[in-house]
């Protein structure tokens, strides 16, 4: 399907922002929304320790519900900062695109769609041209950052990617990038995709060491 303009006027957007701020749960407000730069880790002289620290910083993104919700460990994606099961109940299906008759694109579009005049806790339906679940072998739900780290380096569990391809994916993939543009009413992952990409690049450059837990 073709997508054209979707945004309302500036005034309406301002209101949405104001309403969103009022309704943001405490847990969301407390979450840091910035990333340290890759350069700022230079002070850690031990390369392995630096590598682990870089990955832990990137972990603020990786373990953010915006990312984990679509890297579920079961057949069902999660939703929201509380990471509850997706409602309505949808299932992985072929290629992570949902089941026949109720695929992701029954509701999700190629871009975030504002919901106007309805629930104040549901201001938009998220969307992206590639909207789908990560394969089950790439599940992050319920895993520690250390486990996710090891998994990311394992070609059997990272989509057979080289580390260069991992960096490219993290730094430039459009669906990964959705995490920073999640639509009205949703907290974005911290920092920017560029900063995140640089953290991952620096982590790879320093030997891609993993946290112990």
């Amino acid at each position: 399907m073709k997508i054209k303009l979707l945004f309302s006027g500036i005034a309406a957007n301002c209101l949405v922002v104001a309403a969103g701020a009022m309704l943001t749960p405490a847990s969301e407000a407390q979450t840091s929304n910035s990333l340290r730069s890759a350069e700022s880790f230079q002070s850690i002289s031990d390369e392995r320790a630096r590598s682990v620290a870089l990955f832990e910083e990137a972990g603020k993104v990786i373990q953010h519900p915006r990312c984990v919700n679509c890297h579920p460990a079961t057949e069902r994606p999660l939703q929201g900062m509380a990471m509850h099961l997706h409602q309505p109940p949808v299932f992985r299906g072929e290629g992570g695109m949902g089941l026949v008759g109720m695929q992701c694109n029954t509701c999700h579009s190629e871009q975030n769609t504002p919901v106007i005049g309805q629930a104040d806790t549901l201001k938009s339906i998220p969307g992206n041209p590639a909207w789908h679940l990560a394969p089950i072998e790439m599940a992050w739900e319920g895993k520690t950052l250390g486990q996710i780290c090891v998994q990311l380096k394992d070609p059997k569990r990272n989509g057979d990617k080289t580390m260069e391809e991992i960096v490219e994916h993290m730094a430039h993939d459009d669906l990964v990038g959705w995490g920073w543009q999640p639509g009205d009413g949703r907290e974005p992952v911290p920092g920017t995709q560029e900063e995140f990409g640089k953290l991952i690049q620096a982590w790879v450059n320093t030997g891609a060491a993993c946290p112990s837990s």
Partner: protein
Amino acid sequence: MVTFTLNGEQRTFDGDPDTPLLWVIRDFEKLTGTKYGCGVAQCGACTVHLDGMPRRSCITPIAMIDGSDVVTIEGISGKEAEAVQAAWKGLDVPQCGYCQSGQIMSAVALLQILPKPTDDEIDGAMAGNLCRCATYHRIRAAIHNAAKSMEG
């Protein structure tokens, strides 16, 4: 100006581009079989076929569907539609009936791809369609009956 086909006829819309397809179908095209139930893609009462696939019209801004093909309950046809509607009548599925257009649109789309779905496949395809009367038990049976009727 958005141009699309609705039940085979070319239509245009030049109102607010944010207007969800649901309200274009109902308020402007005066086709009322497609229902409003939640406005947030939770209940499925507004389900239509967009380029042959089930789609919740309540969260589909009209600007998004330029050039697309929209079919509503008033426009469905073909053996799956006939089988589903006959099966619905055979089991007297509807109670209040308000959600049933959406249920039928989802069921028809399912059978167009999976002519003989299992219970799990039915549940998977239909879990986005709420029925507060809880006619689910008969919906499941009616889809099986429709599938059987198409075998012959």
